[in-house]
């Protein structure tokens, strides 16, 4: 929520660019007349030793809904907080760093680093991420040792996920002749625990809190060699996912649900870059494999113990950018990506027949192959005008699909105008067209698929998009930016399914620096997404349609004042309002009234920083969060015949947090 004066937008509007680009890289410098031995730095200050700051505090949060912990970063009650950034720099190049951010709160990180600059370095890091959904979920299914046991009474559960990550990193560098060698290795482990919403068929659907208890180990390592105009890099990454929950059973129904299986993946990549004159060539080749051979649940009609799931991936890219002269630049790239599923195929008994293979069905191996070309040109007309244009094409092939090839071509253009010293205008337009091979129901599902259906990600589509960005600094103390966008998708050959979509928005932002002490900002933005789709209740033409109108609005403002009590006191305020809504209207026989589906939040933060002395500071902060969401699909546990839900999972709360902290500046 801290949207400060934006230096980037200020910089963008404050300069009037040159029509020519120079190369001031140090390796191009004419040092023939330099006698480096006489270079001195007697006036340079000694910055060795310790410096940084340590902040210790406490946060008190008051809320009756655990969902507020997402915004307040702490659950209800009092919690200690540690923030630190301490650095050590030795006289002979040794250095160390210790950082902590919000340690003690639900989302936090810590980082330790030590080494000798330019030679070697060791790092250790810790990170905790928490996500809270609801603490008042109603269910009579409880998980213990692979079984969901049923209690007589509906009880309350919490849906939340916690990730705890630790990592260690070793890196070293060595200059050998003209070449610079760098090598690194990193290992990290993440533990993810908690409960999340899921559902099973028993055969009636029952929503339940699915336990999560998994570990992901990652290893990445690499070697890079670079010279003055080139570099090459060899990298390897490995990831292993280990789910401690192998299957879920009900007391009267064994192995009814298969949680995510253990899996692993590796990727080996070789990259390189070469620069000559004003042309840069970059390339990368990568090969990888995803393996999943976890034990498969044993049921009648399952012919295997473990499945040998294996997907091989191949990726490559070549990109060239060349500055032909001071006005003209050309660029282009070709990339290739292949997903080759080499798993085995078996026939498995299904509990539901599909009308084609009866009660038995073979698993289907899905392959994709993607080829992408891009070319672009940039021409600087003069110091105030620059024109860019490009053409992108994507050719995607997939197996076992209603449409096995889709091709999408896009043309785009951008115009940058700096016509006035204090303003800048950027215009962008693009048009893309997607078509491909003949759309046909695949052999596996042809008898039940409506022939008029065109799946939205496979269908012919024309997409037009426009964007205008305007930055203006009417005075030294204010910078205003306005961005408007409009995009329209037209599924030209679709009778059933998504037929059209519009997405348009604006964002208005103002940053102000009233004087040396007082700064402020304000912003407003709205977005509308309107989509139209048709449906059919039988294998025939459309007999119903749905219009979905999404709308989002955000409003915010804030200020910061630094001039109170002989410049010892700094006061700040941030406020943000956000409202998301989605209105749907289905027309079938009659038009039904719309259901509520919206959320809004008011977020406010007040803070005061007081400088007791050069070293000691006090901070007092107050944060307020008002949150409300509603969804008519959320109903009481047994409100719908045949369906057991987790109850109404909506939120409606006011939450408060007060934080007091003391900081000590080491130097």
């Amino acid at each position, binding site marked *: 929520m801290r949207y400060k004066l934006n230096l980037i937008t200020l910089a963008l509007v404050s300069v009037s660019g040159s029509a020519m680009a120079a190369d001031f890289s140090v390796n191009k410098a004419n040092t023939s007349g330099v006698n480096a031995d006489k270079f001195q730095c007697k006036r340079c200050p000694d910055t060795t030793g310790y410096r940084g700051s340590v902040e210790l505090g406490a946060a008190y949060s008051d809320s009756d809904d655990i969902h507020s912990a997402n915004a307040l970063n702490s659950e209800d009650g009092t919690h200690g907080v540690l923030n630190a950034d301490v650095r050590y720099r030795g006289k002979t190049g040794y250095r160390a760093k210790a950082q902590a951010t919000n340690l003690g709160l639900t989302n936090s990180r810590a980082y330790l680093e030590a080494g000798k600059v330019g030679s070697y370095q060791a790092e250790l890091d810790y990170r905790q991420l928490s996500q809270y959904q609801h603490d008042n979920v109603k269910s009579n299914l409880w998980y213990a040792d692979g079984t969901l046991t049923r209690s007589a009474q509906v009880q309350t559960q919490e849906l939340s996920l916690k990730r705890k990550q630790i990592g260690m990193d070793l890196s070293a560098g060595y200059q050998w002749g003209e070449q610079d060698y760098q090598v690194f290795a990193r290992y990290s482990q993440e533990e993810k625990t908690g409960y999340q919403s899921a559902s099973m068929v028993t055969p009636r*659907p029952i929503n339940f809190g699915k336990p999560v208890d998994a570990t992901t180990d990652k290893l990445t390592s690499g070697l890079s060699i670079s010279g003055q105009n080139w570099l090459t890099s060899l990298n390897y990454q490995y990831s292993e996912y280990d789910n401690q929950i192998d299957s879920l059973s009900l007391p009267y129904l064994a192995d009814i649900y298969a949680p995510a299986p253990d899996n692993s993946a590796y990727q080996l990549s070789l990259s390189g870059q070469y620069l000559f004159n004003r042309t840069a060539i970059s390339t990368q080749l990568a090969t990888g494999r995803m393996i999943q051979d976890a034990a498969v649940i044993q049921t009648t009609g399952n012919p295997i113990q473990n499945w040998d799931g294996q997907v091989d991936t191949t990726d490559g890219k070549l990109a060239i950018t060349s500055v032909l002269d001071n006005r003209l630049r050309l660029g282009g790239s070709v990339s290739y990506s292949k997903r080759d599923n080499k798993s085995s195929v078996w026939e498995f008994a299904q509990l539901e027949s599909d009308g084609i293979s009866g009660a038995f069905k073979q698993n289907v191996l899905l392959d994709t192959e993607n080829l992408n070309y891009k070319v672009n040109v940039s021409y600087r007309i003069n110091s105030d005008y620059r024109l860019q244009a490009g053409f992108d094409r994507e050719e995607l092939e997939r197996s076992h699909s209603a449409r096995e090839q889709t091709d999408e071509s896009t043309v785009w253009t951008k115009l940058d105008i700096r016509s006035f010293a204090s303003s800048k205008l950027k215009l962008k337009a693009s048009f893309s067209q997607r078509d491909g091979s003949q759309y046909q129901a695949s052999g596996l599902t042809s008898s039940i698929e409506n022939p008029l259906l065109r799946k939205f990600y496979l269908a012919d589509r024309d997409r037009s998009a426009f964007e205008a960005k305007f930055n203006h600094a009417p005075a030294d103390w204010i910078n205003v930016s306005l961005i408007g966008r409009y995009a329209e998708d037209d599924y030209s050959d679709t009778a059933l399914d998504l037929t059209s979509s519009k997405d348009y928005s604006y964002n208005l932002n103002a940053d102000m620096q009233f004087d040396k002490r007082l700064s402020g900002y304000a912003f407003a933005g709205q977005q509308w997404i309107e989509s139209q789709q048709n449906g059919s209740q039988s294998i025939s033409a459309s007999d119903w349609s749905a219009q979905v109108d999404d709308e989002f609005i955000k409003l915010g403002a804030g200020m910061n004042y630094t001039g109170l009590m002989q410049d010892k006191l700094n006061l700040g305020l941030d406020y943000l309002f956000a409202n998301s809504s989605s209105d749907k209207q289905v027309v079938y026989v009659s038009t039904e009234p719309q259901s509520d589906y919206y959320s809004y939040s008011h977020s406010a933060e007040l803070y005061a920083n007081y400088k007791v002395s050069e070293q000691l500071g006090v901070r007092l902060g107050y944060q307020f969060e008002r949150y409300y969401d509603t969804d008519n699909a959320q109903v009481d546990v047994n409100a719908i015949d045949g*369906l057991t839900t987790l109850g109404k999972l909506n939120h409606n709360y006011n939450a408060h947090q007060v934080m007091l902290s003391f900081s000590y500046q080491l130097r």
Partner: protein
Amino acid sequence: MMQLRIYCLLCAIAALMLTSFSIQAVPWDQLPAEQLTKKLETKFSEGKYSKKGADTCLMCHKKNNTVMALFDGVHGQVTHPDSPMTGLQCEACHGPLGKHNKGGKEPMIAFGKDSKLDATSKNSTCLGCHNDPQQMAWYSSSHNLDEVACVDCHQIHTAKDPILDPQNINDTCIGCHPQKKADMNKRSSHPLKWDHMTCIDCHNPHGSMGESALNQITINDTCYSCHAEKRGPFLWEHAPVTENCASCHNPHGSVNESLLSSRAPQLCQQCHMDDGHAGRAAPLDGQDAFGGGKSCLNCHSQIHGSNHPAGSKLQR
């Protein structure tokens, strides 16, 4: 009369001198960007560096706190073998001194918000040293093509570059990408608005060899780096899931739950209209199992893939 004429002449000479001095004091302020760049290029190629390096610069600039803050950061370290301070010192980035410290006050290469140099020229200084794998895709990156300067995001004359603090990353990115600021405040999003996650958890602002400047080569590989449970491969796969997670999800945020581009059952019905089962009209939410609770996912909860031998319909 003669005295008056002499007095007027002296006044005129003084005025002329003052005017000349004021022009000569900062002559590059009036130079158009192109001429300034040419002047700096000439100066750079002539290579008239100072005799004593940083000490020469600090004779005048030592009282400037911003200048001196350089020595608190990595670029001011004299113990770092690759630091500018162990090479051409201040002139490694700001170019040769030339006659900058003499009456003419020649311009130096400058990077601040008042600099008239274009982004490519400024960036050439940084890229001269930062030729490493992290910057490998810079030249073909959208930030380079849109002429974003390194100093638009980074600060050098400081103990700690603010953008290197995870708490500052998102604020910097959304300054130029306000639509992402909107997305991260929608009903569902990754926890970016509270800085629990940062944009660089997924993207490399210096460009990447993958799509959309992602840290991994493909969109799905990027998602799998945190959601390894969805990587599979699964015995029973859901085709659009294996192809592109963004087919159904907007990773930056959505007005719908779970970052979905549309709600169930409408989202599912944008692909499934097969047998009168998926094609049913659902006018009102919460009336039946099709429009209540988790909608289609009440039964087909394994939407990202199932490893149950009887899970072909992604139900178990």
